[in-house]
Structures are given as structure tokens and as C-alpha cells.
């Protein structure tokens, strides 16, 4: 049962990711991306990490994907339609991706991954909302705050850069 669910969810994730790459219309690519995010959220749920799953949906699908769609809507429609799916150097990243895939396949073969464990939660059990909070705010408080400041700097930087054009 868990195994079947795991395969369905991973098919959604990988299928969504393939859809992003292969669809020509950028809006449809964004829709496929959201589909893929749903798969990732499903994987988190299978690991009993409901908090992470919901954050995945709220932050990535609910906020970042909407931002991407909005930016595409503000761009000129004709510019978007003339965009090419791949640029002239697409084979280098493709090669890297292929190497990564070969590496993972080799590892899976070498360590003889047990497929009967597919979808089983072998990690910690129980509520993790509290645990995430404790780890972040007790043990890693300083790195966490520094990350927040870096994000703020990026935010203000974006405002400054775009303000200059308007004058």
C-alpha cells in the first residue's frame, strides 16, 4: 500500500518536472511546476513531515509560483511567445544531469537499495512542528537570523535596482 502510494507520488513529482522542461508555453510550464511541488509535498507527508509538506505548498506553490506567473503576465506577451525552449548551449547542463543520473544509478546498484522499503517512514515519528522550532531557535539561532538578514538585503537590493530605472 505504502509502496504503491510512493510510486504514484514519485510519478507525479518526476512527471511534473519533465512537464516543466518539455512544455513550450511558459505558463503551462509553471503549472507543471506546481504539479511537481504537490508531489514533493506528498513525499514529505509520507515521511510524516506534515509541517514541511504544508510549507512546501504555501511557500513554493502558493507564493513563489504565483510570483513567477505574475512576472510572466507583466512581461510582453509577444516576447514570451518568441522565447525558445532551449538555448544554444543546452547540451552542457544536459550532460551534467546525465552524469548525475548515472552516478545515482551506480550508487543504487552498488549499495543494493531495498525496493520493498519504498514509501516506508524509517525516520523519526510524531509531530515535528515543535522540534523544528526548537532546533532552529535554540541550537541554530544565529545562522537563522543571519539568513533572515541576507534575505532582507536581497529584498532591499531588488527595490534599489528597480527604482533607479524609474527615477
Amino acid at each position, binding site marked *: 500500500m505504502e509502496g504503491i502510494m510512493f510510486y504514484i507520488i514519485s510519478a507525479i513529482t518526476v512527471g511534473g518536472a519533465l512537464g516543466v522542461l518539455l512544455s513550450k508555453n511558459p505558463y503551462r510550464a509553471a503549472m507543471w511546476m506546481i504539479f511537481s511541488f504537490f508531489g514533493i509535498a506528498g513525499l514529505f507527508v509520507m515521511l510524516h513531515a506534515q*509541517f514541511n509538506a504544508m510549507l512546501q*505548498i*504555501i511557500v513554493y506553490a*502558493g*507564493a513563489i*509560483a*504565483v510570483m513567477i*506567473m505574475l512576472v510572466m503576465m507583466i512581461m510582453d506577451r509577444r516576447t514570451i511567445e518568441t522565447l525558445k525552449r532551449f538555448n544554444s548551449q543546452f547540451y552542457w547542463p544536459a550532460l551534467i544531469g546525465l552524469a548525475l543520473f548515472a552516478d545515482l544509478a551506480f550508487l543504487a546498484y552498488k549499495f543494493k537499495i531495498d525496493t520493498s522499503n519504498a514509501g516506508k517512514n524509517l525516520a523519526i515519528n510524531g509531530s515535528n*512542528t515543535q522540534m523544528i522550532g526548537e532546533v532552529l531557535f535554540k541550537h541554530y539561532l544565529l545562522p537563522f537570523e543571519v539568513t533572515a538578514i541576507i534575505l532582507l538585503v536581497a529584498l532591499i537590493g531588488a527595490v534599489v535596482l528597480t527604482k533607479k530605472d524609474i527615477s
Partner: protein
Amino acid sequence: MEVLIAIIKLIIVVTVLSVYVMYATWYERKVIGHMQQRIGPKRVGWHGLLQPIADTLKSFWKEDVIPEKADKPLFWLAPSIAATFPFAAAIAIPFAPPLHLANGKVFYFSVFHSKIDILYILGMMGLTSFGVLIAGIASGGSKYAFTGSQREAAQIVSYEAILALALLNPILMAHSLSLEKIVEAQRHLWFVFYQPFAFVAFVIAMIAATARIPFDLPEAEPELVAGHMTEFSGLKMGLFFFGQYVMIFVVSALASIVFLGGWTGPVLPGVVWYWIKILAFIFMYTWFWGTFPRYRYDQLMDIAWKALLPLMVLNILWTGFALAVGLPVL
């Protein structure tokens, strides 16, 4: 067995909410009518009670017009997304207080129950904006639909942030993300008395997030015809309305659970209190519709980012400080 119960619950919830949507339109027309000294629907059935059924039947037989330039699959996808995600949010809303059975188990009157109910509802609410966004994109370059959907997406993203920040205060006070625990924490005093600012911000944000008057910029008739729904007809347009009314129910129930103590209250049984509160919020929507003019778009954005966001951040800081040093929060 559990799966079977969940499926039965799901069917009941979808049916009840569909009937609710039909009669919510009747109720709104009636209330607005009386507010403007008209009588509202009166011809079909007793006091127009069969009017929503007639309207639904009519929308089934309407011609389904699809524009030539429309992106066909997305044109189908948009109304279905707009109607699906509000229902997805509604399945986590309890319809009555949980029942403690004799064998020690608890029977929940919501289809889906977890420790992170509030996050789930917020997530599903955030995704409803995609129905509108896709509607704008799929309409094949229709300017009204495009502008309307841009407006609505920007509005929903802004006000979802306010909604989440306003919910954070009660969550901090209840130490839980589960709706039952939050109600449990309000046994003695409702959170609206501890957190008046958060409550006001939540009510403003919930009206804006469902895009109703005074914040119905996406469908402002004088400027945008029908906004994102301009190119849709018949049942497809009906589905957008479906989504909107279910959404109104979801945020009303959320507000009454989180701020008004859900099913806690004196004298009357819990279920009655709970539904009085929800129906009061639904009436509030209609009331605002009948009384307020529409805001301008820049004013709408100013309210979110310049007034409510700083206020809510200060409120969270204060709540956190007060909880840390053990002061009574107000």
C-alpha cells in the same frame, strides 16, 4: 472502515456546501434587496425559494462559448481549479464540535483532521488564486480578463500574508496549529478580547482574500466588465462563483473558530453557537456589500503593506514578549 467513513463524509460535505452555495446567492439577493428597499426574488416558489434551483438549471443549458484564441486545456482547467481548492480547504473545517465516543475514540465532524489544520487551510486558500490566474492567461489575450486576473493575484498574495500574520497571534497563544486545541484554549475568554488588532486585520484580510466588496477590484464592473470571468459562460462561470462562496464559508468558519471561540459559549449548546457565529460572518459579507463603496487599487495595496503589515508585525512582537515574560496579552 476509516476510508469508507471519510468518503461518506466527503460526499456529505460536498453536497451540503453545494446546496449552501445555491441558497447563499438567494440569501444575498434577498438581504441586498431589503437593504435597498426592494423585495428581491419573489416569483419562483415561496418568497423566491426555488429561484437558485431555477438559476442552476438555466446555467446548465447555457451555450458554452470558448473564444477562438483561448488556450483550450487551460480554459478548462481554470474553472475547475477555482472550484476545487475552496472545497479542499473546506474539508478541514469542522461542521460541529468533536464527539467523544464511549469507547474512548473521538469522532470529528471534518473530513480531514490533522495537527496542522490551519496551515493546510492556508495552503489551499493560497492555491485558489491559480484558478483566477489561469483564467486570465487562458482567455486568449482578452484585456479585461488579463487585467482582472493580474489584480486578483496581486491582491490575494498580499492579503494572504496579512491573513497568516493575523492568525499567528492566536496560534502563539494556543501553542498549537490544530483547530480543536485553539478552541480549547479559549474556554475562559475568546481570543478576540486578547487580540483585537489581529481580529480586525483578519476580517479586513478575509474580505480582501475572497475579493468581495469593498475589495472586489478584480471584478470591478465599471472598469473591467467581469474581470477574470469575462470570457467564461454558463457552467464555467458558475464554477468561479461556487469557489468564491465556498471560500467565504471557509474564512467565516476560520474566523469564528480562531477568534470567537468556535463552539464555546454560555447556555446554548456548542453547535448552535458555532453556526450562529459562522452565519453572522456570512451576513457581515452581505452587509458590507450593501453599504460600502469600492476602494481604489492603490488604496487597497496601501492598506495591506503600509498599514496592516507593520501593525501585525508589532502585534506579533508584543504577543511574543508578553507571553515570554508572563504578562496578560492585550
